[in-house]
Structures are given as C-alpha cells and as structure tokens.
C-alpha cells in the first residue's frame, strides 16, 4: 500500500519510493574503479527496461591518474525516463561516489534531497586529504541537505568476493559491480542481462567473473534487506517508442556504421586512415573490427599521412576517409586543399575537443567550425556537416560519403567529444529497403577532359587502370584538359567553378527547416551539432509556457541550407547557442546580415537545460513582452 508523502514520494513497506518522469544517475570514482563500465552496463539495463535515455561519459585524459586525486575522477551520467530523452540531465537524482575525490568533484550543483551513496570504506583521512577536504564532509554539515547513504562498499565487496581466491586488490576491483547491484535494486532492474554480459566478457577469467557476479548480487541483496532503510527506490515510466528493433548507439559507432553504409551504397570500398588521437580513435577501433564488410583501416605514421593516404585511396577508386580531432585537423588542412584542387572525394571526420592546442582532450567543444570552413590557404571550399547526436551521426556519416563521391569534393564531418561518447537508443533501420546511390566512374574513351564539368559542375572520376584515359592531376592549377595553366582567366574560371560546385551541393540537401516553432516567432534559438538536446528541451519548456520561441538546428554548415536567410529574417530575434567563442554567429551575421546574438560557453561539458532556458528568458523578457 503506497502512502503519499511529499509530491512524487510515497512509502511502501516502510521504505520511500520516489516517482520521477525522468531520472538522472551519476556514477563517479577513481579512473581505475571501473566507473565507465558501471555506466555502460547501467545504460544497457536502462535501454532493455524500455526507457528513453542519453548518456554522458566524462573521464580524465590520464589513463591511470594517481588514485584518490580529484583530477583522476571518472564519471558516467545517464538520464532516462518515460519520454524521448534529449539531454544528459542537468543534475543527478542519485550520485554514487566511490571515494572522497569523486564526492568533492561532483558536490557542486547537487539539488537538495539528492540521494548520495558513498563508499564509507574509502573515507580515510588520507583520501579526504587527497580530495582536498579539511574535515570529513559527512560530519561537518556539508552534506546536510542531501540523503546521504554511507555504505562500506570496499569492505562488503571484499567479503562477498573472498571465496574466489583472488587477492584483495583484485577483489576490490569488483566494487563497481557492488555499487551497480545497489542501484539496480533502486530502479527495480533485472540482473540477468548484466550477468549474461559478464559471463561472455569474463569467459576466460572465471575467478574475476565470479567476483563480479558475487559483488553484483551482494549489492543488490543488501539494498533489498532492510539494513539500509533510508535507501529509497524509484519508479520511472517506460517511454513510448516507435515499434521496431532497437539497440544502444554511441556516436563513435554511429560514424563507423554510417561510413560503412555510405560506402556500400556508393558501391565503393571504404578506406579509413587515422592517426591515434583522443577522442576520435574509437572510430578507428570500431572500423578495424569490421574488415569483413569491405573496410580497410590504416593506422598512419602521422595525421598528414592519414589524410594523404585517404586521398590516394580516393584517387584509386575507394572512398578515402580520415578521422581526427582539432590538432589533427590543423595538420591535414594542406592535404584537404589538395583534394579541393584535384577535385577528389574525401571525408574528414573531426571529433572536436576543447582547444586551442592540446586543450582538454577528453572534453567537448564546438570550436573547429571556422577552421573547417575557412582554415585552408587559398580559396578552398569544402562541404561541412555536423552531427547533432549519435543517431544523427549515422545519417551524417553516410551523407558525407554520398556528397563526397557524387560531387567530387572533400566533406568535413564535425562531431564532438560529447556526441562521440554519448549513447542513445536507436531504432535499427531496415537498410535493405533504402535506396542505393552507386557511383559511376567515367570509362568511356573519346573527348575526355579531366576537368570537364557536368551540369552540377562536377568533374568525371576516372580511376587508374581505366584503359585509354591515363591522365595527370595534382595541386597545380589546371585547365579543363588537365594541363598545368597559369592563364589568369583560367584561374578565375576554375576558382569560381570550385566555389560554385560546393554551393550547388545545397540543391542535394533538404532546405532549412525548424525543429520547433513557427517562422515569425519572437525568438529563434539557433544551434548546430551536439547542442541539439539541451536546446531542444529548453525550447520545449518555453513553448509549453506559451512563449513564441523556435528552434533551428543546422546539420549542414556549408553550403548552408536553401531558404535559411529568409527563415532567419522572419524572426524578431536570434539567439545562437554554441560551445565556442562565437563561430556560427559570425557565419550567420556575415552571410545574412542578421543581428544574431550569442549565448556561448566553453566549459568542456554539454549545456545544462536551465542555462539555455535562462538565456531564452532574458531575451524574451527584454524583447517579447
């Protein structure tokens, strides 16, 4: 029998039950604590439970930062619930902190009443000092407004796993499974899928498997008994999804899958060349496991070699792709210019991260837009796309291949560290029912001019090995016949043609369209790439309050979508929200002479919804009342 307490809270069998439309759970601990694994397994369970979800893995650049330090804290947040979840969640409802440093890092911004689960076994004087706590926060009032539940997870894990014969250190590594067991009970989750996963994963290490399973069950059992009566449980509704077959999809996977699908639809082998760089390397890893699908991966000696080899592969009749992050994009720019000049297809995936220079390699940012658009010497136009989330990254990746091969042009696909690492439920498309768009190489002899253009300004793609069409291309300016030319009028003509060819790609793309709202609304929030979620949510909440606020989200940054200028001019006010110091806003102001304003932040993490809501409210307050 449930008894109403405060709103959304009831008691059942004497224990508190909290009802939430969506919930946010954050796991935090040392980077060696297996936090990312806990998060991924909780995500798997959440997806299988039928919730909408969005995740935010947040980890340090150091692989094994010194234990117990604040800079070694790794975290994984998941936001899930009874609707399509668009954001990672502003604040957690449950924080699991496996050591004092994790508590310290994540204390800021916690809402009153948040359930904070601590491993009290780790709150030693030494660890408190390392975390920078002068006094024990559990007893000095710091945590007074939260529901703090201290459990000696370390000791209980040791005891639950003692029978496995593993050493103490190894036993302690199962702490994350113990914590997972606790959280599973709180959200009424089935242990079976995670047990099945663990059995497959640790097949070759039976003792480790046994320790993890024992810890998982011990955590779950502890929560179930009344030994910690203050531990609440949660009720979160399932989401209504379109019927179909689903899987969890990360941005990395999405890009790999999209590239493979694009190459297959073009009828070309995929050649992916990359130099290891955070946070792009997982795309290389994913594709390297897909070699049976017409994929060749190539780990190059440097960023320049990676893009050069990709260009070589495109020249030879594959679709050459290179993946990187900001520092690598800088290095590749000269070669991208070569592909512009040679008019060869090329896809460059840039997983943007916080810059400049090395910046914060594992943290997200959107600060490579202008570099992608204009960062090469000479007039070197390319197509620039941006992925707004994992599912969109799949579409953009295959679109990048399509545009590159059908317009003989380099395409830069911008994603970011957040999109790359985030996971969301994805309805698996029925690929067999979608149309292919095969490439046709030029093979006919007679009247062959390497730079003759069709009505879309596109030159023919002739691959070496084609009888009778041997020709030379390269970085020097050429005339239509492929002859080196210093003729002033020819350079004028070719420069215009390269520019126009890229602008015409817009005809092959959907026109500008609003995500929410109507043309002519008072405020239009304009975003691009990985900020889609928080903007979308913030605009939804404002529209529910009756505000005339629209959301426009750009996935095509160059060429810009048809009709964009007209659409932008229909609004009274424009608010461009982006994670940089003002890049899209400069582009829109320059292209359309609109008085767009900015809301900018570069903190290395996604926007919180309420931050965007406040920015909208300020604009509405000033102009729309």
């Amino acid at each position: 029998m449930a008894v109403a307490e405060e709103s959304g809270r009831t008691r059942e069998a004497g224990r508190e039950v909290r009802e939430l439309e969506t919930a946010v759970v954050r796991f935090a601990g040392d980077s060696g604590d297996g936090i990312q694994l806990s998060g991924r397994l909780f995500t798997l369970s959440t997806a299988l439970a039928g919730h909408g979800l969005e995740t935010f893995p947040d980890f340090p650049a150091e692989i094994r930062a010194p234990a117990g330090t604040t800079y070694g804290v790794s975290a994984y947040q998941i936001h899930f619930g009874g609707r399509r979840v668009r954001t990672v969640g502003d604040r957690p409802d449950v924080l699991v902190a496996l050591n004092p440093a994790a508590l310290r890092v994540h204390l800021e911004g916690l809402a009153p009443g948040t359930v904070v689960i601590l491993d009290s076994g780790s709150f030693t004087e030494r660890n408190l000092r390392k975390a920078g706590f002068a006094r024990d926060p559990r007893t000095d009032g710091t945590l007074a407004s939260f529901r703090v539940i201290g459990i000696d997870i370390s000791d209980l894990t040791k005891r639950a796993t003692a029978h496995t014969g593993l050493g103490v250190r190894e036993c302690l590594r199962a702490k994350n499974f113990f914590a997972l067991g606790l959280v599973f009970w709180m959200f009424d989750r089935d242990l079976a899928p995670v047990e099945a996963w663990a059995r497959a994963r640790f097949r070759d290490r039976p003792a480790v498997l046994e320790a993890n399973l024992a810890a998982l069950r011990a955590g779950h059992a502890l929560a179930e008994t009344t030994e910690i009566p203050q531990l609440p449980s949660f009720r979160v509704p399932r989401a209504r999804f379109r019927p179909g077959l689903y899987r969890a999809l990360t941005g990395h996977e999405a890009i790999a899958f999209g590239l493979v699908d694009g190459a297959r639809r073009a009828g070309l082998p995929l050649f992916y060349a990359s130099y290891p760089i955070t946070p792009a390397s997982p795309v290389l890893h994913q594709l390297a496991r897909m070699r049976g699908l017409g994929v060749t991966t190539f780990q190059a000696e440097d960023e320049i070699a990676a893009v050069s080899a990709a260009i070589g592969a495109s020249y030879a009749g594959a679709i050459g792709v290179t993946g990187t992050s900001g520092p690598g994009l800088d290095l590749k720019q000269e070669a991208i210019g070569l592909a512009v000049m040679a008019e060869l297809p090329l896809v460059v995936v840039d997983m943007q991260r916080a810059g400049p220079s090395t910046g914060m390699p594992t943290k997200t940012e959107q600060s490579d837009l202008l570099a992608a658009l204009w960062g090469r010497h000479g007039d070197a136009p390319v197509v620039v796309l941006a992925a707004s989330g994992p599912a969109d990254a799949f579409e953009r990746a295959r679109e990048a291949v399509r545009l590159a091969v059908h317009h003989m042009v380099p395409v830069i696909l911008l994603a970011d560290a957040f999109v790359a690492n985030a996971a969301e439920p994805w309805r698996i498309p029925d690929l067999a029912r979608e149309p292919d768009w095969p490439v046709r190489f030029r093979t006919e002899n007679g009247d062959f001019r390497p730079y003759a253009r069709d009505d879309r300004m596109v030159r023919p793609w002739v691959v070496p090995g084609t009888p009778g069409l041997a020709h030379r291309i390269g970085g020097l300016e050429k005339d239509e016949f492929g002859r080196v030319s210093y003729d002033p009028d020819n350079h004028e003509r070719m420069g215009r043609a390269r520019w126009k060819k890229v602008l015409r790609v817009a005809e092959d793309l959907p026109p500008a369209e609003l995500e929410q709202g109507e043309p002519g609304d008072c405020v239009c929030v304009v975003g691009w790439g990985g900020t889609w979620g928080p903007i979308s949510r913030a605009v939804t909440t404002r529209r529910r309050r009756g505000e005339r606020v629209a959301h426009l989200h750009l996935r095509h940054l160059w060429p810009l979508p048809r009709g964009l200028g007209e659409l932008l001019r229909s609004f009274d006010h424009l608010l461009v929200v982006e994670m940089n110091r003002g890049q899209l806003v400069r582009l829109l102001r320059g292209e359309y002479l609109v008085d767009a304003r900015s809301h900018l932040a570069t903190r290395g993490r996604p926007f919180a919804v309420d931050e965007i809501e406040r920015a909208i409210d300020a604009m509405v307050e000033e102009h729309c009342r």
Partner: protein
Amino acid sequence: MTAPRLHPRDYRSDQEVRWCPGCGDYAILRAVEKALAAVGADPDRTVFVSGIGCAARFPYYLATYGFHGIHGRAPAIATGVKIARPELDVWVVGGDGDMLSIGTNHLIHAVRRDLDMVILILDNEVYGLTKGQISPTSPVGTRTPSTPLGSVERPLSALRVALAAGARFVARAADTDRDLPDILVRAHEHPGTAVVEILQNCVVYNDGAFAHVTGREVAAEAQVRPVPGEPLVFGAARDKALRVRPEGGLKMVRLEEVDPADLPRFDPTERELAVMLAALEPPMPVAMGVLLEDPAAEPYERALRRREEEAAAAGPTDLGELLRTGPVWVVPG
C-alpha cells in the same frame, strides 16, 4: 590481356618538358621510359605519384596515370593508392627535399611497411625550384643564398635512412649511368618497396656536385660497383678492393697485398654488407648499383588483403546483420 610491347617513347606524354636545359632529370626520364618499356608496363595500370620540387614534375611527362601531390607526401598518397588497388603498378618520384626533409617520415614508414612499389629519390643536394638553398643532403660548408657563410649541418644519406627503416631493396645510380634502366627494372621486379637513389645533376644551382664521383675520368677510382659472387674490386687498374674490418665498416686494400680468398664476396641479400657499402663516402669509393636485394617478405598490401579476406570469412559481412548482433530489444507495435 597484355597490350603489345611499347617503345620507350610511347611512355612520353604530350606535355612540354619544363626542366632547365641540361638538367639531369632528362636522362632519368629517358631511363624510366626505357625501364617501363623493358618491363612491358601497361600505361593504363601504371601510376606515378610525386610531391613538390623539380623532380616532382615527373608524372606530367609520362603517358601513365599521374598524381602530382603536395610537398613530401608522395609516399603517403602512394600508400593509399597501392592499398586500395594492389594490382596497380605504383612509382613514387621525389627529390631530396621531398624525401629527406619535409617528407622523411613518410619515406621511412613506407619503407618500413614494405608496399610493393618503387621510390625514386632524385638527389641533387640542393633546392632547385625555390632557387638554390641547401638541402638535407648538401655537404658541410655548402654556400647558398640561405647559407652565405657555408652550411654547418651534416648531410643525410638517402640509402642509410632507407636501410635503417628496413628497406629490402636499395640501389644507387647516377642520372647518366648506362645501367640505370636495368637498375630500375630490378627495382620494379622486387616484391616490396625498392628505393633507388639517383645522383642528379642540377646544372643551374649545383652543377658538378657529383663530378668527383661520376666524372668519366674519375669514376673507376671513385666508385665501387658490387657484382654478386665477386669480391668488391675497383680502380682503373682493378687493383683495389674492400674488406671488412673486424671492428666493422669497410677498409680499402691493394689487391696485391691480400689473399683474394680473404676478401668478402658480394651477396646482395646481405643486409650488414649493404649498410657498410651504403655508408661509403669519398675518399672511399662510393658504392653504385644494387646494394641490397632481399625479396623475402609478403608486401604489406597483400598481407593486409589476406587478413581482410580472413575477417570476411569469419565475421558478419553485412552491416544489417552486424547491427542486430549484441544487445538489442524489440518495441512491439
């Protein structure tokens, strides 16, 4: 399948050659045409890839497929071409600036991977196209507009770099050497990356840079041309030879002073000897010809292809199938 044999001039494109009159590149171009004719190369299946510099204009002058890339990156571009299309015949041409300065990294890694292609390094010990600055192979003391007081840095040796990177075929020749076409044919036949260093005379900025080695009157004394199975004999009177010093390196001896049985015989598959030969500099004789030819390994692109075929046999080959493996769930309609 194979087209009728072509004459060397059939490999010439219709483009007007724009090197300075008298440039060593002309002779090299002729040698390459002869080599292509000798191996019966199909121009439609042959690709020349280059970087930037005088030497890098090469692809324009040949009637094959050609890709004139960016400075230093030719080996990397060629790597992509060869991996994507192993059946193509890929040649890389660059100068000392391309290969031993801005793009050395790519040279090293192309050689290390051992793709089946030929890399020609046209070394003239100077930057020609940018008007005569020192190059990474210029000797100490070279005076140029960028080093008016004479350079102080030591030169790099193309073949020593290639050997350090694990090259299995290295050769050295002068631009006008009569056996250059033969050397190119052997480089082409080698199943792996073949590196050929060609001493190329830049008549404008560094005329006669190699005269002390290649000059007709001095060549016999200034060069050693190893012959398989033979001792390393040289000299106008063929009265000198090379032997291995116990502490390493080669030493010059007079034939009359040694027992010929003590002299090492040249074995082109012997890497240590090739390293010592490649390192010889005046006043020792400079080693010319094929110094190492050790065709043992499987070229990179073939090994890679084999793994891909194995993967295709083992794993899913369809994306739709792959997407449905792993944790999935059904939302009922």
